[in-house]
């Protein structure tokens, strides 16, 4: 039997951090909520069988996001009519620096963005980041270096 009280406590405690990480990954509040919901649903199904629920949820969060950015034959199609642009994220303060950071984050590749979020927002070690993304530690290092370089270059110009 699933312990729903413990799951509810977990969502209440860790939900805000997961939602913010998802927002940094997607750059969009609505998509971030969907992403977190998807990750927490997967966690709910494994609840009680996962020793480290937060690590599991983070791993699901980033892998689901990276998977969603891969273009598939049944995925998004070019269209002549532009859809409505998402409104500015009201959760982020309207600071120019932060708007600039969000813009720069969006320009990173999904993997680079995931590495930046895991390393500098979730404060994971390189080893844990590698485990969450299921890539070698060396790839984490090189990807982080590349991402930071791009962010710094952007900041400095």
């Amino acid at each position: 039997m699933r312990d729903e009280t413990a799951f509810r406590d977990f969502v209440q405690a860790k939900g805000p951090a997961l939602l913010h990480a998802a927002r940094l990954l997607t750059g969009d509040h609505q998509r971030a909520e969907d992403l977190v919901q998807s990750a927490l649903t997967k966690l709910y199904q494994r609840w009680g069988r996962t020793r480290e629920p937060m690590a599991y949820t983070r791993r699901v969060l980033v892998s689901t996001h990276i998977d969603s950015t891969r273009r598939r034959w049944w995925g998004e199609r070019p269209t002549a009519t532009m859809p409505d642009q998402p409104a500015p994220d009201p959760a982020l303060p309207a600071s120019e620096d932060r708007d600039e950071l969000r813009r720069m984050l969006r320009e990173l590749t999904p993997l680079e963005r995931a590495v930046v979020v895991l390393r500098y927002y979730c404060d994971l070690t390189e080893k844990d980041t590698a485990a969450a993304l299921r890539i070698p530690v060396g790839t984490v290092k090189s990807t982080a270096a590349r991402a930071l370089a791009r962010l710094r270059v952007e900041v400095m110009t």
Partner: protein
Amino acid sequence: MSPSESELRASLHAGEGDQLDVDAVLAQARSTSRDRRRNRLAIGGAVVAVLAVAGVITGVQLNHDDHQQTGAPAPSGSPAQMVPSCPGSAPIVPQSYAQATGPLFPADVTAIKVCLYNAEQLTKSKDVTGPAAASYAKRFNDLPVVAKGQVCPLFVTPYTIAMLPVTPNGPAPTVVGKIGGCGQTSNGTGARNAGDLLRELETGLGVGAPGGGTGGSVSHGPIVPSHSVSFGPGPS
């Protein structure tokens, strides 16, 4: 840690603190979990159904093969699948038949395993099922009971026929007959002189005992028909 990294960390943490709607998350998770469970059950049910259909088809196919083997339709319940196997060596004719008046076969026989032995060695066997089995059982039972004090010629061939009857309730006592002489046949509680029928069965098995069941030119045994007999339903 470089200053730029500190700035990056601070910038990334800015704006956090939004709460999730826990009830909505939980409701969605429950719903998805329920759907997954339902899907799993549906898939499991479909797999079970497919296996059941495959099992029925296989059973029907096996039953059909048995029919082809005996040339007679088997009744429901697939008795052919329950027919026991022949003993490795010829069983001994039960000796208590002298005044045994009981039937050789039960009335509800559904199959008979016929085993032919030559010098105690199993040489041939065949399953008789359905109406053919019932017909043979009736014909054996209808033969006259061995009369008290009856004298039979001593000529005996090396051929023995063992018949293993099967009823809906399981195997019945084995009926054993010796070809030759009077064709004495017994199951321990009933005894008949069944030379003709034993010879007919033997011919049906495709193995002719040399000299026939009566000792060739010696005419002191039952008269044996020379025609070939198949395992179809016989006269009842």
